[in-house]
C-alpha cells in the first residue's frame, strides 16, 4: 500500500481539499470508472496503516519437555490456553474400541480429582471458566478461556481433568446412550450419510474410513476404565502442542503451563497408523434416497502443509471454490445460472492424507447440467490455468484479510497451536503474507495442472431411481 506524503499526514481541512482536488483531476483524466474511485477510498482512508502489535514468543519450561508459543494481549482481562495432543485422535483407536476418543472428549469433564461432575461444572459456570474438548481423526484437543482473575481456579480444574478424570458412572452411561442415539439418527441428514459413505470409499480399510463416533456395538462395549486408560496413555508431554494468549507476561505464561501440564507422563503410548493408499480409479458411488436435492461431492489428491507447492495449491483452491460467491465454481453454477445455492472446494490436511475436495447440491432437474459444468470448470483449470488478474485478486484477499485472525483471544491461542503442529516457525506471522505473495503464475498453474485432474472420486446422494 502506498504511503501518504508527509504533508498529508494530519487530517486537516487542507487534506480534504487536496484529496478532493486529486479526485477531481483523476476523475477527469481517467474517465472516472468505479474502479478508480474504489481504490482511491482504500488508498486515502483515514484509518490506514494500522497494524496488529502482537508478537509471538517461545516459552520453554524444563519440566514440560515441550515448547509453547505465547502472545501477550492485554486489551481485555482474559487468558486463553489451547492444547493439542497429536496422534491421539479417533483413527488411532485400537480395534474394538471405536468411539473411545469421541466419548472421552464428551465426558472428560464429568468429575475429576476431588471435584464431582456437579462441582466442576458449577465452578466453571459461576466463574466464567470455559473448558472445551474436541477430537478429530488425528488429534485430541482442548481450549481453556477464563477471566484472568479466576485463573488459579481454572488451572486447578483443568489440571485435575487432564490428570484425574473420573468419568462418573451416571454421566458416562448417559453419554453412551446419547452417542448410540446419534449413531441411529445420523442418516436423517443426507449430507451426513453421504460423507460417511464417501469416507469408506476414499479410505477403504484404513482407520480414516471409520465413523468417528464408533458403532453401536463398540460404544456399548466401552468401559470407564477404557476412557481412563485413553487419557493416561495418550495425553503426554511429547505429543503436546501449546498456545497461550492473553493478559499475562511471559513468566506468568510459563508458570501457568507448568502448573497445568508438568505432571503429565513424558511419552504417549506408541501407536502407528498403517500407510494409506488411495485408489483414484474407482467408479462413482451413487446412493438412492428421496430428497429435494441431489448432493454431489468430490475428492482428489491434495498437498501437505509443509510441501513446496502448498501455497500454490492453497491459492488455486481459493480461486476455484474456496472464496465463496466470487469463486470460479460459484460464478459458473450459482451466480450465472442459479443452479445451486452454493458450490465449494477445500483443502483437507491430515496426518496421513491430503485431499482437495469439492461439492455442490442442486435439484434433480439441474443435476446433469450442474455436473457437466462442474467437470468443465475443474478440467479447464488444469488445461488453461488461471489468469494473472485472478492470482492478484486472490493475493489481495489473502493478505488484506490477515488481521481478522486476531479477532478473539481463543482464536489466537488456537492459531499458535497450529503453528507448532505444522512446524511453521516462530516468525510465521511476519512471513505469512510474503509466502502468499511469492507464488508466481507459473507455480500456480503448475499446481492447477497437477491437482485438478480427471482422477477425482465422486459420490452423490439423491433420487436417482425416479430420474435425474
Amino acid at each position, binding site marked *: 500500500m502506498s504511503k501518504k506524503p508527509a504533508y498529508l499526514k494530519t487530517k486537516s481541512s487542507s487534506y480534504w481539499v487536496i484529496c478532493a482536488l486529486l479526485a477531481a483531476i483523476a476523475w477527469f483524466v481517467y474517465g472516472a470508472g468505479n474502479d478508480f474511485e474504489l481504490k482511491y477510498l482504500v488508498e486515502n482512508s483515514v484509518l490506514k496503516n494500522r497494524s496488529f502489535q502482537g508478537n509471538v514468543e517461545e516459552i520453554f519450561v524444563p519440566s514440560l519437555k515441550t515448547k509453547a508459543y505465547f502472545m501477550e494481549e492485554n486489551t481485555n482481562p482474559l487468558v486463553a490456553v489451547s492444547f493439542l495432543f497429536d496422534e491421539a485422535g479417533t483413527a488411532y483407536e485400537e480395534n474394538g474400541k471405536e468411539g473411545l476418543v469421541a466419548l472421552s472428549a464428551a465426558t472428560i469433564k464429568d468429575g475429576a480429582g476431588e471435584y464431582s461432575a456437579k462441582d466442576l*461444572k458449577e465452578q466453571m459456570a459461576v466463574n466464567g471458566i470455559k473448558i472445551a474438548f474436541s477430537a478429530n481423526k488425528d488429534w485430541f484437543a482442548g481450549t481453556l478461556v477464563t477471566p484472568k482473575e479466576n485463573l488459579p481456579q481454572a488451572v486447578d480444574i483443568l489440571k485435575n481433568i487432564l490428570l484425574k478424570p473420573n468419568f462418573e458412572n451416571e454421566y458416562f452411561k448417559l453419554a453412551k446412550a446419547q452417542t448410540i442415539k446419534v449413531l441411529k439418527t445420523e442418516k436423517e441428514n443426507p449430507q451426513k450419510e453421504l460423507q460417511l459413505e464417501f469416507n469408506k470409499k476414499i479410505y477403504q480399510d484404513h482407520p480414516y474410513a471409520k465413523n468417528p463416533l464408533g458403532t453401536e456395538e463398540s460404544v456399548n462395549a466401552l468401559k470407564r476404565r477404557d476412557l481412563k486408560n485413553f487419557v493416561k496413555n495418550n495425553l503426554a508431554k511429547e505429543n503436546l502442542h501449546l498456545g497461550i494468549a492473553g493478559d499475562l507476561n511471559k513468566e506468568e505464561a510459563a508458570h501457568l503451563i507448568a502448573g497445568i501440564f508438568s505432571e503429565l507422563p513424558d511419552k504417549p503410548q506408541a501407536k502407528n497408523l498403517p500407510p494409506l493408499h488411495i485408489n483414484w480409479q474407482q467408479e462413482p458411488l451413487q446412493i438412492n434416497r428421496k430428497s429435494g436435492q441431489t448432493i454431489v461431492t468430490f475428492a482428489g489428491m491434495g498437498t501437505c502443509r509443509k510441501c513446496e507447492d502448498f501455497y500454490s495449491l492453497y491459492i488455486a483452491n481459493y480461486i476455484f471454490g474456496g472464496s465463496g460467491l466470487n469463486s470460479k465454481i460459484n460464478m459458473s453454477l450459482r451466480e450465472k445460472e442459479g443452479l445451486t445455492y452454493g458450490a465449494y472446494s477445500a483443502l483437507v490436511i491430515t496426518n496421513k492424507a491430503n485431499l482437495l475436495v469439492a461439492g455442490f447440491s442442486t435439484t434433480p432437474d439441474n443435476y446433469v447440467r450442474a455436473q457437466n459444468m462442474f467437470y468443465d470448470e475443474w478440467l479447464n483449470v488444469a488445461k488453461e490455468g488461471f489468469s494473472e488478474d485472478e492470482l492478484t485478486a486472490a493475493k489481495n484477499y489473502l493478505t488484506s484479510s490477515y488481521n481478522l485472525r486476531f*479477532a478473539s483471544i481463543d482464536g489466537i491461542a488456537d492459531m499458535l497451536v497450529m503453528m507448532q503442529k505444522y512446524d511453521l516457525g516462530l516468525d510465521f506471522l511476519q512471513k505469512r503474507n510474503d509466502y502468499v505473495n511469492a507464488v508466481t503464475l507459473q507455480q500456480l498453474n503448475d499446481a492447477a495442472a497437477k491437482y485438478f485432474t480427471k482422477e477425482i472420486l465422486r459420490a452423490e446422494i439423491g433420487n436417482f431411481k425416479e430420474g435425474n
Partner: protein
Amino acid sequence: MQKYFAILTALFGALFSFEVKAQNFAMEDFYLDNGLQVIVIENHKAPIVKQMLFYKVGAADEKAGQKGIAHLLEHMMFRGTDKVEKQTLNKVLEENGAESNAFTAQDVTAYHQFLDVSRLELAMFLEADRMRGLAFDEDTFVTERDIVFQERKQVIENNPAAKFFENLNKILWQEHPYGTPITGYDSDIAGLSVDDAKEFYNKYYAPNNAVLVLSGDIDVKTAKELAEKYYGNIKATQTEKADYPQIAENYKARLEMSLPDVKLKRFVKIFVAPSLNHDADKVYALELLSQYLCGDENAPLYQDMVVKDKAALSIDTGYDGVVKSYGSFVISAVPADINTDEFEAKLLKSWQRALKNLTEEKLNLVKRKLLADMVYLKDNPETLAQITGRVAAVGGSLEYVDMYAEKINEVSFDEVRQVAEDLWQKAPQVTGILYPEETVNE
C-alpha cells in the same frame, strides 16, 4: 427516549447527534440528520472492524402475495447498483479481504462486513451506495430467484425435521406473520417479480429505517465523520410499520406428526412470550428463567429429566425477547424411549418442582452464572455488534445491553416464578411431537 429523539431529528434536522454514554461497554450511539442511528463500539485489540447495517424490516413486513420478497431482495443487494457494476460488489469486497454476508430475519435484514479497518471506508461507501441506488434488472432477478429456490430446497428439504418446525410455527402463530417461513414457501418464491422487490426496497430501505453499527478499531469522532461522509447525504423517506395481529391468551394447540427419514423423536413446546416491545419489564426475568431451568448440566430441568429420571436424552430451553412483536420461549427435548404422555407428565412435574425449589440464594447463583460470561463480549468485536444492532433495529433501547447486569440483578425470585406460571398457564402455546415414521402408532 432515544426513539423520541430519532423522530425529532428526522423531523427538524436540527441536531447533529444525540449521545447516550455507555456504562459497561465502550459504546455510544448518535443519529444523523436523516434519521440513521449509528452505534459505535470501540475495541482496539486489532486493526479490524465490523460494519453492520440493519434495516428495520424483515419477512414479517411482507404483504400477502409477496411472501419471501425480503429475503430475495437481500440476495439482489449483492448484484450491483447504478454506480457499482453488476457482480463487482462481492469482488471488490473480497479483494479487500472482507468477510461479507447478510441475513434476513422476521423483523430485520442485516448486511455486514468484517474487515481490516483500512478498508472500512470502502465498505461504508459500498453499503451506503446500495441503500438507495440498487439496480434491478429482470434477468438477474430471475437467476437470484432460482438461487433462493435452491437455497430453500437445500436448507429445508435436505433436513427431514424442518417441515415439522415450519408446521409448528404455523400452528402457534396462526395469522401472525411470524408463522410464515422467512424464505416463503416454494409457490410464494415462484410468484415473486422484480417489481415486488423494487417496491419493497423503495419503501423500506432508507436511513431513517436503519441502524449502522461500527464495532472495532475506531473512535467515536472518526466514526461520526465517516458516517456523515458516506451516509449523511442520503435522504429520509416515509416508511411503514407492520401491524401485528393479537394472539389470544389461553390458545393451546398440539401437533403430532411423523415424517419419512426422521430417525429421532423430538418434543418441542413453544410459548408466545413477552419481548422488548411487549411487556418489556419481564424480559430479564424470562432470561433468568431459561438460564435457571436449563442453563447448564446442573440446572434442575436437565438434572431431573436427563440425569435422574432418564426421561430424555437431552433437554434445553431458549428465550428470545429481542423482537418487534411477541417473543418466544421454547422447551426442546429428545425424549428417551418412553411413552409421550409419561414424558409430558414428567416434564410438568419437573417444571413445577424446579419453580417450587427456587430460592433467593439459588437465583443469585443463576444471576452470577449469567453475568460471568459478559466479559467475553469485549473480546471479539463481531459479537457485540450483532447483539446491539439487533436490539436497536427492533426498536429496543441500548440500555438492554448497557444496563443488562443491573437489570438482571434487580429481578426477584417472585418475578421469575410469576413469568414461569404465566407462560405455562396463560400464554398461547403449541406442543409438538415428531415421530420417526415407523413408530407413529406406538
